[in-house]
C-alpha cells in the first residue's frame, strides 16, 4: 500500500535497504513525515482496532441494558473528525476522496445527517470522477432507511446527473428504483418500472458490486413488482421437498399459507 522508497534512497540503496527494514519493523521512522495516504491508512487501522476491541467488550457484556448503553457510545465519530481534517488538508486529491467517503460512511452509521450530507455533497462536487466513489450510490441508498428516502433521493439524483462513470450511474439508478419501489406514495411507486427498465436497457451488461449483471437484477425486481405485491397472486411454482416429493404452491389453495424463505446458516 504505502511506498516507503524515496528518491535519495535509490542512490544509497544498500543503506536504504537497512533503513527500510527498520521502517517496516518500527512503523514510521521518527523523522519521516507520513504521506497523506499513510495518514489515511493509519487512521483507518486505528479505527478498525478500536472497533474490534469494542466488539469484543460488547460481546463479553451480558447485561442487555448495559450492552445498549455501550453500543450508543461505540467508537466512530472521533475518527470521522480525523478523516474530515485529513480530507480538508488534502483537498482535491484521491486521499481526500477516500477520506470524505469515510466521513460519509461513519456519519451515516451514526445518523449524523448534516455530516453525511456535506460529505456526499463534497464528493459530488470535488470527486465526481474518482474511482473511490464507486460505493457511494449504495451508501446513499442505504442511508434512506435511517435518514428517510426523501432526504437521500436528491443526493442520488445529483450524483446521477453529474457522474459520467457507468458503474456510478447504474448504482444511482438502482438505488432510485428501490426508493420508488418501497415508497408508499402511488405516484412515486409508479416510477419504479421506468427506473428498472432504464437500468436494464442502459446498463444491462454491467455487473453490480455483487457480481450480478443489472439486466438480471432488474428482471428480479420487475418480477417482484408485477407478481409479488400485496393483493397479487404469485405465479405457481413447483418445488421438491425434503423427502424428494414434488409439490406445487397451488396444492395449498384453500389454505392460509406462510412462505418462509429461510436458512439456518
Amino acid at each position, binding site marked *: 500500500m504505502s511506498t516507503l522508497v524515496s528518491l535519495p534512497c535509490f542512490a544509497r540503496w544498500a543503506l536504504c535497504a537497512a533503513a527500510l527494514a527498520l521502517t517496516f519493523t518500527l512503523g514510521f521512522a521518527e523523522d519521516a513525515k507520513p504521506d497523506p495516504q499513510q495518514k489515511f491508512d493509519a487512521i483507518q487501522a486505528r479505527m478498525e482496532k478500536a472497533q474490534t476491541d469494542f466488539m469484543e467488550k460488547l460481546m463479553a457484556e451480558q447485561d442487555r441494558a448495559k450492552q445498549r448503553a455501550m453500543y450508543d457510545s461505540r467508537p466512530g465519530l472521533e475518527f470521522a473528525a480525523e478523516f474530515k481534517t485529513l480530507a480538508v488538508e488534502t483537498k482535491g486529491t484521491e486521499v481526500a476522496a477516500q477520506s470524505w467517503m469515510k466521513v460519509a460512511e461513519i456519519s451515516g452509521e451514526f445518523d449524523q445527517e448534516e455530516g453525511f450530507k456535506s460529505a456526499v455533497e463534497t464528493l459530488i462536487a470535488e470527486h465526481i470522477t474518482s474511482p473511490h466513489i464507486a460505493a457511494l450510490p449504495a451508501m446513499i441508498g442505504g442511508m434512506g432507511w435511517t435518514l428517510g428516502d426523501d432526504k437521500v433521493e436528491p443526493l442520488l439524483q445529483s450524483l446521477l446527473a453529474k457522474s459520467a462513470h457507468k458503474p456510478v450511474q447504474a448504482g444511482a439508478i438502482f438505488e432510485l428504483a428501490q426508493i420508488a419501489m418501497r415508497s408508499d406514495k402511488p405516484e412515486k411507486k409508479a416510477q419504479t418500472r421506468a427506473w428498472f427498465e432504464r437500468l436494464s436497457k442502459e446498463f444491462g451488461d454491467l455487473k453490480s458490486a455483487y457480481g450480478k449483471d443489472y439486466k438480471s437484477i432488474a428482471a428480479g425486481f420487475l418480477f417482484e413488482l408485477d407478481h409479488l405485491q400485496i393483493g397479487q397472486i404469485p405465479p405457481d411454482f413447483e418445488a421438491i421437498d425434503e423427502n424428494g416429493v414434488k409439490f406445487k404452491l397451488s396444492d395449498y389453495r384453500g389454505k*392460509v399459507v*406462510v*412462505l418462509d*424463505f429461510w436458512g439456518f446458516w
Partner: protein
Amino acid sequence: MLPHEKTLVKRLADKPFALIGINSDGPVEKVKEILAREQITWRQAVDESTDGPLATKWNVSGWPTIYVLDEKGVIRYRDVRDQEMEDAVMTLLAAGSKK
C-alpha cells in the same frame, strides 16, 4: 422466529393453514439434518442456496423473507414475524371461516 413458528404450526394443526419453508441451506441431506436437529416438522422446498431457483425468481435478498397468502392464493402480508405473523394468519383464518 423458530419457536414461534413451532407453536403456530402445532396450534393450527387442524386449521386450513400451512407453513412452507423455502430453505437455502444446501442440498437435501443438509436440510434433513437441520430439520431433525431443530425439530422442524413443516414442509420445505429445498432451494439449495441463497441463489437457488426460487429465491432468485422471487428476488429474495434478505433472509428470512416472509409472504402470507390467503386461501385464494393472494399475497396479503409481507415480512411479518413472530407475533405479527401469528396475528396475520389468525386474521386470515378468521376471515376465511366466515365465508
